[in-house]
């Protein structure tokens, strides 16, 4: 039984959560992706706030389940997972380490500074120069706005000819 003397520090809990992989992109953790918004104790109950990447992302409930399982395995028996919608998740919350891991895994990390002009402010937004995660060439082309998951687009490198996923910037 955890009480105010034995309960682990939220920083320690965050470090534990760095070991929980994202179910769809297991190269990065839920902490790397910026999905975990808050970790704090509400007397002797631990409250973990998570945010969905996309409103229809089917991984969100799996992520909640895996966080719960990981923390129960660490002896935290009273915990509550809260879903938080605001502010909406942005790829700017992916950590530097997360970006490095994505690239090493073969997924081009998102361009920094999400947002940009709205489709109404500029007639057509220009495609960004996305570097190939394999050969680093920026001579790449977008094949499709969507890839194997909503968060990724499909690209192809014109130099090394390798197709690759790009983690969309939102």
């Amino acid at each position: 039984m955890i009480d105010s003397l034995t309960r682990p520090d939220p920083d320690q809990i965050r470090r534990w959560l760095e070991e929980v992989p994202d179910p769809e992109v297991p190269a990065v953790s839920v902490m790397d992706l910026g999905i975990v918004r808050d970790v704090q104790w509400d007397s002797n109950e631990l409250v973990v706030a998570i945010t969905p990447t996309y409103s229809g992302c089917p991984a969100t409930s799996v992520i909640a389940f895996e966080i719960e399982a990981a923390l129960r395995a660490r002896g935290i028996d009273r915990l509550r997972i809260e879903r938080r919608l605001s502010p909406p998740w942005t790829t700017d919350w992916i950590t530097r380490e997360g970006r490095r891991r994505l690239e090493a895994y073969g997924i081009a990390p998102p361009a920094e500074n999400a947002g940009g002009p709205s489709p109404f402010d500029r007639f057509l937004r220009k495609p960004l120069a996305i570097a190939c995660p394999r050969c680093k060439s920026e001579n790449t082309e977008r094949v499709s706005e969507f890839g194997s998951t909503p968060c990724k687009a499909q690209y192809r490198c014109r130099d090394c000819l390798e197709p690759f996923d790009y983690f969309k910037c939102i």
Partner: protein
Amino acid sequence: MNAQDALVEYLLRLGDNALILGHRLSEWCGHSPALEEDLALSNVALDLIGQTQLWLNLAGEIEGKGRDADKLAYLRDARDFRNVLLVEQPNGDFAVTMARQFYFDAWHYLLLRELTGSKDPRIAEIAAKGLKEVTYHLERSQEWVLRLGDGTEESHRRMQTAIDDLWMYTGELFASDEIDRAMVQEGLGPDLATLHEPWLGLVRATAEEATLSLPQPGWAQKGGKRGIHSEHLGYILADLQFLQRAYPNATW
């Protein structure tokens, strides 16, 4: 109708638009002209179904009769659906699907952008979440209107036909009734008429670049927001609701 009932109605409209269009797009799964398009349409559908859950859960919560998003989606009949007629129109060919999407996305984008300033923080946060997704939906459907309109003779002909045929369903997007007016009064939602100019500006500029001609504003087909639907909705619901109707309370 009191303020709470009006709000529930309004949320049902937002949720039902996303649900019915999401379902329509999911019908392309496994049938698209190319694998990339299959993935793209399914992913847009997934975004819309995600937004549906947020809107309908909120509607059910405010209604307070124990209905959640699933109950509202699976256990209402056609007359109780509040989506605009545009989104229930059949997929047709790829040009029809993309023209329908472009008309809707451009409006949806403007509407959600306004709703991010809603006085109700629950509405504002769902709108902010959805707006990010709808931004790339719009970019994509706009690209397809350009590509097909300014493409081959065949693709141009098909896109022009789609733009013409769906035009009469766009008027409903900007027509306000007492529910919309109640939302404006409470500071919860925008005056729909104010969305018309920017919408028309984008649609006109896109059509021009795509070498398409826009029909003249004219008579608009309306009714969906009040539950008066085309025959298509019943068929959609027969498919969408089959499992819950055949096996009530079945769970995954």
